[in-house]
């Protein structure tokens, strides 16, 4: 984020950084709430908050299409289905508190996430503050006529095969779900 604001000089740079810190802060707090929350519904709601602030970060980067898609797909569809399942399960309060079976889980979880954080830092150490220029800087995106057009242009040319493959996989999953829910196969 810092890298981007260094790359293109425009008014309101400080504002952008300020907003980034606000949204980043909310994202961190909400993700902590997501992990630490005892009630699965509360955790799901914290996750929705995370999706929202990440969408806000996308907007700050000038990627409105990604932001809208993020909210539409993750917050609007996937998390609703998650909530749906959690609600149907209707966990009892005693079951929720029963964490003794997973005594080591917390320890391993924290240790592994520290390792992961270290790895991520090492990988991006070189590009964190310099901001290596990608293939689609803001002026290139402008050349396409906007980021929706840019995403479409790349998705339906260079990445057409993976794109179609993904849709075929999703279709298979859908057929699989229908087969599994059918009680009798004729």
């Amino acid at each position: 984020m810092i890298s981007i604001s260094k790359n293109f000089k425009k008014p309101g740079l400080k504002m952008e950084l300020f907003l980034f810190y606000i949204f980043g802060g909310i994202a961190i707090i909400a993700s902590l709430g997501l992990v630490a929350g005892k009630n699965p519904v509360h955790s799901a709601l914290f996750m929705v908050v995370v999706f929202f602030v990440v969408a806000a970060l996308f907007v700050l980067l000038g990627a409105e299409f990604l932001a809208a898609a993020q909210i539409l797909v993750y917050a609007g569809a996937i998390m609703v289905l998650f909530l749906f399942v959690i609600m149907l399960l209707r966990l009892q309060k005693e079951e929720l508190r029963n964490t003794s079976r997973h005594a080591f889980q917390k320890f391993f979880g924290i240790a592994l996430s520290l390792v992961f954080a270290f790895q991520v830092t090492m990988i991006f150490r070189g590009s964190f503050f310099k901001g290596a220029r990608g293939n689609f800087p803001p002026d290139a995106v402008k050349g396409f006529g906007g980021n929706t057009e840019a995403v479409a242009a790349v998705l339906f040319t260079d990445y057409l095969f993976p794109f179609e493959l993904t849709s075929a996989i999703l279709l298979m999953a859908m057929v699989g779900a229908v087969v599994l829910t059918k009680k009798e196969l004729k």
Partner: protein
Amino acid sequence: MTEFVIIMLVKMFVIFGAVMLTMTYITLAERKILGYMQIRPGPNRVGPWGLLQPIADGIKLFLKEDIIPDNASKAVFVIAPAMALIPAVMTIAVVPFGPEVSILGRNVTLFMADINIGILYIFAVSSIGVYGIVLAGWSSESKYSLLGGLRSSAQMISYELSMGFAIVGVIMMSQSLSMVKLIEAQKGVWFIIPQFLGFAIYITAAIAELNRTPFDLPEGESELVSGYFTEYSSMKYAMFMLAEYINIITVSGIVTTLYLGGWHGPVLPPLAWFVIKLLIVVFFMIWVRATLPRLRYDQLMTLGWKILLPASIVNILLTAVFMTVFG
């Protein structure tokens, strides 16, 4: 900069105020129109022709006792009505009520913002509206609320798909996601003529999204008391009602923008045309409520998945074929 802020603030107050005022009178209009369609006068005691009824309703709701059930999940129970209302209000920001006009020597647009992903924004925000309903159903710790919430979320997810696909036809014809460009593309022919199939699908799905008759099973009185807001009272209940009626206005605004040519029309100023068309769509929704009986749950799912969804895909195909052959 300061001028910009002042203009935006004034617009915000004017648009929000106008929508709230229209919303309160749509509740009255709905009761009056339903009354006349059922050959009874409707509310007619408070003020002439019942015109003060919405104010009386508001005062009544304010003064009612606010009850939170003992077993309810308190925080979520309080947040839920807000989560239903906020997305409803947020979508108004991109509804284009009129083009640029000159007021007091300044060029002012009659909408809050024309963002280049207008339609996607509306979709994204309105897909959040379902949280209010789901959470209200869950947090109330009541069987009726939970069933209502579950039904409603299943319904909204099912119909959102057809709604999205129906709009694709319009986007293909206008080559833009911006609400203003969509209206400009309809200068000659309104999209309701080439996209009549899409229009039919969209308005059906939109009524289902709003949980209105004939798709109001989530709040089916005869079986679920009043569904997800059974346990709500006072202003929290009022917030669900506000959300529903503001959503009616926004959906009518979107239908006007997408299919009815927006502010285009002869003689009258653009804003007047937009409002007239919007009110016609609102009237249509009330008319539907007075006419059609409630669907059964399996009929609702069949209609959504087996009729509307395939029809919307056929609509996309037909649009593509016609655009390639004649365009």
